[in-house]
């Protein structure tokens, strides 16, 4: 067995494999930084390219692409407040304020180190404890998943907004939009308003681009044009303490990195929840644990560390159910199944018996991709900062045009462009009126799995109203959810009456 492991790791060190992993990481960082192109989209576009590679190189390339995209999403988020990917949205809450203070390079460095740390942690967990962790995921049945999503939405509703009422309204609105399309049981169109294009549902890409990037650019242009360019000029301090992360600062974030990495690994191992949930959950927990939570959202390094470590930890962890059970943990893992099949392998428990050397070669590629990400990120940091120092009159039109083309590229559909503009319009008003668009996006992402788990519970229990009482984990999660909601609403009333 040891010979197989060593042989697998040696396979990953083949020069051609190293080259493709490096190319994947670089391409992923660039793709993630561009609003509208995310890891799964980049993987989908590049799977055909992997035909011409060896199996190890192909999977290493695609995984490097995914890892790079997770960090890349934080670049545009920190520097432009327009995250390239939904999971980087929590990073912007502290990253962008730091960038406005001239410490953009520092914020990016923390994002890079946190991304690499979280990724490394989940890769180690994947290698060491994949099988036992997968059995925990298997225990999570539809009642537990339904209850967990209720709790996740409640926690996330309180983030990034001063009013949990507005957060809950935004999350509920997102769930409502998520129900547009085919009803999962009867497969009949629901809330499609007789538009055939809506029968396949609304894709995340136009919502993500419209709400995260396009609307933010419109608001920044408003400040630039109406209030004067000085309001949004992004400069970079030349002082070392504003550019680099000191060992003291990094040491202060180690516990944060560890907690967030654990959160991201657990969420990543549970199919369906995804990186956005991990990053917001980790951010929320870090804020609650902090001695001065009011500093979060104003440029706290721990906020960046928590969000990035958690969302990057999902990358490795999402491969746990894929390798051990053949169940993809997220969209990227689902696309990787296609790559595995192309190269003659079926993900699942038999892989460890039939292709053990290949599995360990992939583990080696994961570790190498992590190292490359650190190098590419450190080398590219100055270039990223230089790009955003371009005049607003050049930078913003490029981003606007890229957003439009990006939303078209998802499914080659002009209708998606219209949807993107529609949701950008909605998000503009949501941001003006302090309704958190992130809660909307989370609600939208979780709606299908939430409804599917509810349907499964109802159908399997044959409409038994006491179905949840037979699942202790589900009961505990629902009780916590109700407690959080009641406490938050009471707190909101007390705050308003005191003011």
């Amino acid at each position, binding site marked *: 067995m040891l010979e197989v492991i060593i042989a697998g790791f040696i396979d990953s060190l083949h020069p051609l494999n190293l080259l493709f992993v490096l190319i994947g990481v670089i391409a992923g960082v660039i793709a993630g930084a561009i609003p509208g192109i995310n890891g799964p989209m980049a993987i989908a576009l590049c799977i055909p390219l992997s035909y011409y590679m060896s199996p190890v190189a192909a999977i290493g390339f695609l995984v490097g692409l995914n890892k790079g995209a997770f960090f890349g999403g934080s670049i545009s988020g920190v520097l432009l407040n327009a995250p390239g990917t939904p999971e980087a949205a929590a990073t912007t809450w502290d990253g962008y304020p730091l960038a406005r203070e001239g410490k953009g390079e520092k914020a990016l460095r923390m994002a890079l180190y946190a991304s690499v740390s979280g990724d490394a942690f989940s890769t180690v967990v994947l290698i060491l404890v994949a099988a036992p962790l997968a059995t925990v995921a298997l225990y999570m049945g539809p009642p537990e998943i339904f209850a967990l999503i209720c709790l996740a939405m409640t926690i996330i509703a309180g983030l990034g907004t001063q009013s949990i009422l507005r957060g809950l309204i935004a999350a509920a609105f997102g769930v409502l939009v998520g129900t547009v399309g085919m009803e999962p049981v009867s497969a009949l169109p629901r809330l499609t308003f007789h538009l055939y294009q809506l029968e396949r549902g609304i894709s995340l890409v136009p919502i993500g681009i419209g709400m995260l990037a396009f609307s933010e650019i419109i608001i920044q242009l408003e400040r630039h*044009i109406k209030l004067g360019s000085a309001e949004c000029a992004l400069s970079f301090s030349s002082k070392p303490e504003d550019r680099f992360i000191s060992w003291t600062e990094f040491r202060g974030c180690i516990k944060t990195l560890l907690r967030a990495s654990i959160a991201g690994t657990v969420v990543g191992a549970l199919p369906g929840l995804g990186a956005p949930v991990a990053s917001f959950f980790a951010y929320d927990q870090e804020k609650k644990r902090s001695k001065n939570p009011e500093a979060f959202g104003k440029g706290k390094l721990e906020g960046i560390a928590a969000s990035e470590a958690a969302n990057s930890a999902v990358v490795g962890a999402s491969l746990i159910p894929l390798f051990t059970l053949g169940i993809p943990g997220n969209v990227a893992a689902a696309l990787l199944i296609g790559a595995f099949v192309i190269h003659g392998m079926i993900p699942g428990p038999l892989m460890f018996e039939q292709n053990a050397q290949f599995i360990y070669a992939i583990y080696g590629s994961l570790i190498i991709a992590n190292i490359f990400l650190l190098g590419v990120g450190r080398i590219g940091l100055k270039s990223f900062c230089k790009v955003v120092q371009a005049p607003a009159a050049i930078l913003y039109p490029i981003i606007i045009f890229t957003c439009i083309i990006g939303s078209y590229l998802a499914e080659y559909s*002009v209708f998606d462009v219209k949807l993107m503009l529609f949701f950008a319009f909605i998000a503009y008003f949501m941001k003006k009126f302090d309704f958190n668009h992130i809660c909307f996006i989370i609600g939208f992402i979780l709606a299908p799995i939430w409804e599917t788990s509810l349907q499964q519970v109802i159908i399997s229990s044959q409409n038994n109203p006491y179905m949840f009482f037979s699942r202790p984990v589900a009961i505990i999660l629902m009780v916590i959810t109700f407690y959080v909601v009641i406490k938050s609403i009471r707190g909101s009333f007390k705050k308003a009456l005191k003011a």
Partner: protein
Amino acid sequence: MTIRQRDNLIYGGIALGGAAFLLWIIPAFSPPHPGYGVSAALLPNVTVGIILVLSVLALIRNFLSYILVKRKKPEDVRAAVASQAEKVHLWHLARFMIPCVLLMPAMKWAGFIPAGFVFMLVIQYFCGQRKPVSAVLVAVGLVGFLYAAMRYGLGVPLP
């Protein structure tokens, strides 16, 4: 308009919209119950119900805080006014949205490169670009690069 008035308008509008969804839109655009599982309208009804209840709660909360402030400090009844950054600038929004909406039909009519080029010039002008050479170079560069990437690099159909 004060922030309180704006909040009341917003929550009132949301409550009305929620009622419209519950009473008309969801019943009209949801398929009938197939006989097993839950009704297709359940989740939309639950979410719109939550939106409606929360918006009504918010209106009640605003009303109660207004009454309390009026009793204790009548001079503080006039709440803060929204700042310039918090105001909605409809003309600014329309100025950027209209060219974006027209871009795809223009590409269908005139082609990717001509429509993209004109779009970039217009958007750059709205963003404050007043140097024609820079504007043309950026427009040509970006549109040309994306055309080449999509047509020859990725091999995807152009809009």
